[in-house]
């Protein structure tokens, strides 16, 4: 018999109509699943009531195990025990070359890596799917039915490839993804911050091994991630390490490598106890002599030992604020996420920086999963319409297309809220051009070579026309999960081509930040470069048109002297174009000067060909009218 939950007044679902939906926090170290029951978001535990499922998969001879069982086998069988697969998902071999992991990585393709296990080469998508499968089974057991869908959280800095790979993992686990949600946004929802009208919030997420900070702006119920920052190699484990090192030294040294595990465990226990006690006694047994060392550890001493680590987290916070052009005082609230934010000195440091107490009411390990569950409940249609919240995120970097001259035409500017669709018309550059290559790029710079290439595709079958006559509408569409599809349609003939962007390589937070900084630092140079390139394209187009016109009508309509004059002007333009390509990469001043000279040469050519153009026009009109009666023309 099905078991019932309490609903909000007027919202009790008809039988068989309550749609079971869950929120999943697919973490690097641990994963959680949560759902809304009786109007409240709760984390679903396993049979032992454990909420956290270690994101570890072990490939055994007979069976694959996930979670605590898999983690227990890590020491004995490191090659076949995969932890932290999230660091690999959606990344290319080049991206992960520097990631230090205890198992063997192999390239699956240019764009994906796999882990060599006894069960074969496993992709991060397959490994992630195993974790998701375990969470799905737990949720279906706890909720007593099949799930209609799940909201899965991803870091705000995940790029399209990493998001797509996460969706692929969910599909493989048999989960219907209602949407992907940014982790900081999920934490903000868990605290109900989305019910405010507007505000600026900072989400400080210090986990076991990673640190992320995000600045969110809420406007009319819509969260935008304005900036992100962090340190992928800083977490609670580092605090344990510092404390263990202090203990080893303060207790007189002489510890053996065999004691390291015990020292870390003792450090962790002491660290956790200090959240509730002013002072604790840290104890650890020497494996060599059996002697138990113990030292009193007051909170103040622990603060001193780990001060440097807490300081290290504040750098990325300040940078993220600077990127968002905000001062700490302008922030309306700070949300703490991640188990390590239980440490009081972390809370104190954050409170001092922002001059306000951070939100800590929700278990920091669970906030992200709970927020995802609330979102899943809304998306599954279990809430009435009027308070249905539609959450939006933004794309972190501009998306655009390559145009002639290696320039970027931005179609969707950075920080546009998604889902969104924008289009722009393009045309052909050459007479009789029947195909167009579309190169989708991401970044803030003006030149394609400085941006990140996402995809290329070709629109074929454009009917031959003179340059500039074809009308090709290029539409960029980003769905609610931040996945991009690009569509190109030639308006006259209707030929079209499309691509779903599953971009090839990863994009780390630092890269986004670097790309933004680059674009700011080189704004002046980029602008000069772009204007020069545009002048070059204009000049080249004029040059080509003149060549074609001379070829067609030169002998008919021009005196030899006139032809000569035009050829001289053309030569001047050609010379300038050659000098321009040499000047590229020069100083902005030099480029501006070059552009002036090129413009002068093009203007001269334009001027001298104007009478010729007029004569050609007259000749065409005459040709069209000859042999026709006036009344026929009027009809």
């Amino acid at each position: 018999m099905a078991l019932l939950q309490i609903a909000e007044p007027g919202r009790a679902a008809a039988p068989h109509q309550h749609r079971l939906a869950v929120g999943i926090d697919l973490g690097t170290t641990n994963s959680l699943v949560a759902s809304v029951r009786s109007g409240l978001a709760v984390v679903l535990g396993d049979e032992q009531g454990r909420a956290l499922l270690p994101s570890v998969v072990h490939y055994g001879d007979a069976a694959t195990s996930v979670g605590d069982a898999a983690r227990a086998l890590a020491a004995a069988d490191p090659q076949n025990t995969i932890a932290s697969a999230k660091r690999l998902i959606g990344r290319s071999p080049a991206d992960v070359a520097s990631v230090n992991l205890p198992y063997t990585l192999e390239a699956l393709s240019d764009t994906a890596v796999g882990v060599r296990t006894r069960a074969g080469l496993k992709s991060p998508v397959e490994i992630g799917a195993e974790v998701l499968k375990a969470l799905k089974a737990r949720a279906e057991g706890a909720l007593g039915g099949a799930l209609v869908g799940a909201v899965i959280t991803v870091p705000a800095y995940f790029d399209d490839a990493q998001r797509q790979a996460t969706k692929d993992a969910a599909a493989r686990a048999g989960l219907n993804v209602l949407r992907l949600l940014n982790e900081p946004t999920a934490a903000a929802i868990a605290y109900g911050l989305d019910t405010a009208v507007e505000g600026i919030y900072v989400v400080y997420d210090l986990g076991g091994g990673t640190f992320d900070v995000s600045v969110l702006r809420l406007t009319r119920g819509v969260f935008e991630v304005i900036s992100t920052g962090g340190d992928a190699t800083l977490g609670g484990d580092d605090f344990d390490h510092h404390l263990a090192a202090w203990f080893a030294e303060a207790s007189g040294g002489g510890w053996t490598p065999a004691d390291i595990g015990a020292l870390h465990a003792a450090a962790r226990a002491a660290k956790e106890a200090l959240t509730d006690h002013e002072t604790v006694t840290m104890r650890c047994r020497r494996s060599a002599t059996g002697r138990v060392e113990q030292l009193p550890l007051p909170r103040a001493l622990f603060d001193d030992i780990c001060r440097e680590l807490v300081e290290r987290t504040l750098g990325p916070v300040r940078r993220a604020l600077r990127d968002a052009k905000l001062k700490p005082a302008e922030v309306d609230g700070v949300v703490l996420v991640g188990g390590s934010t239980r440490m009081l000195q972390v809370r104190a440091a954050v409170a001092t920086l922002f001059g306000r107490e951070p939100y800590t009411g929700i278990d920091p390990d669970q906030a992200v999963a709970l927020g995802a569950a609330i979102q899943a409940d809304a998306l599954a249609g279990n809430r009435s319409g009027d308070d249905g919240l539609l959450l939006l995120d933004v794309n972190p970097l501009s998306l655009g297309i390559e145009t002639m001259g290696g320039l970027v035409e931005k179609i969707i500017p950075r920080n546009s809220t998604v889902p969104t669709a924008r289009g722009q018309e393009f045309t052909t550059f050459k007479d009789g051009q029947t195909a167009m290559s579309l190169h989708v790029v991401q970044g803030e710079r003006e030149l394609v070579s400085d941006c990140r290439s996402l995809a290329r595709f070709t629109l074929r079958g454009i009917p031959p026309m003179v340059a500039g006559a074809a009308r090709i509408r290029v539409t960029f569409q980003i769905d609610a999960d931040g996945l991009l599809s690009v569509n190109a349609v030639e308006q006259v003939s209707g030929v079209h081509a499309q691509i779903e962007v599953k971009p090839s390589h990863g994009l780390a937070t630092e890269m986004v930040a670097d790309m933004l900084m680059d674009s700011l630092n080189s704004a002046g140079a980029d602008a000069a470069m772009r204007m020069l390139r545009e002048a070059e394209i204009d000049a080249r187009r004029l040059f080509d048109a003149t060549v074609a016109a001379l070829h067609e009508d030169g002998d008919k309509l021009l005196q030899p002297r006139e032809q000569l004059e035009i050829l001289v002007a053309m030569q001047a333009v050609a010379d300038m174009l050659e000098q321009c390509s040499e000047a590229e990469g020069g100083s902005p001043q030099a480029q501006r000067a070059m552009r002036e000279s090129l413009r002068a040469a093009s203007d001269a050519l334009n001027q001298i060909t104007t009478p010729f153009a007029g004569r050609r026009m007259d000749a065409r009109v005459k040709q069209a009218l000859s042999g026709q009666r006036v009344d026929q023309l009027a009809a």
Partner: protein
Amino acid sequence: MSVSVTPKAATQIRKALAKRGGGVGLRVAIKTSGCSGYAYALEFADAASADDLSFESEGVQLLVDAKSLPMIDGTQLDWVREGLNEGFKFSNPNAAATCGCGESFAI
């Protein structure tokens, strides 16, 4: 005429009300739908309406509208755990048959 809850169910209801931060009690109602004709509905109650009958059981206020009462008179609400799943379960002496899923019943 009465509807009651077990001590375990009462604890859960109190907990849910406290977490929700408001509400006078629990509304137990019958809706005509589902595969066997009638379905139970459990909702938080923010106020009693004129045709509500109110019962107190194990310190919890239960509200039942007059139309629903005949069909659930004598029902006891329990909180049970089945494997990982936990929730409220109805023991209704009036129900002649319940559908396989237990979400609806016939009289």
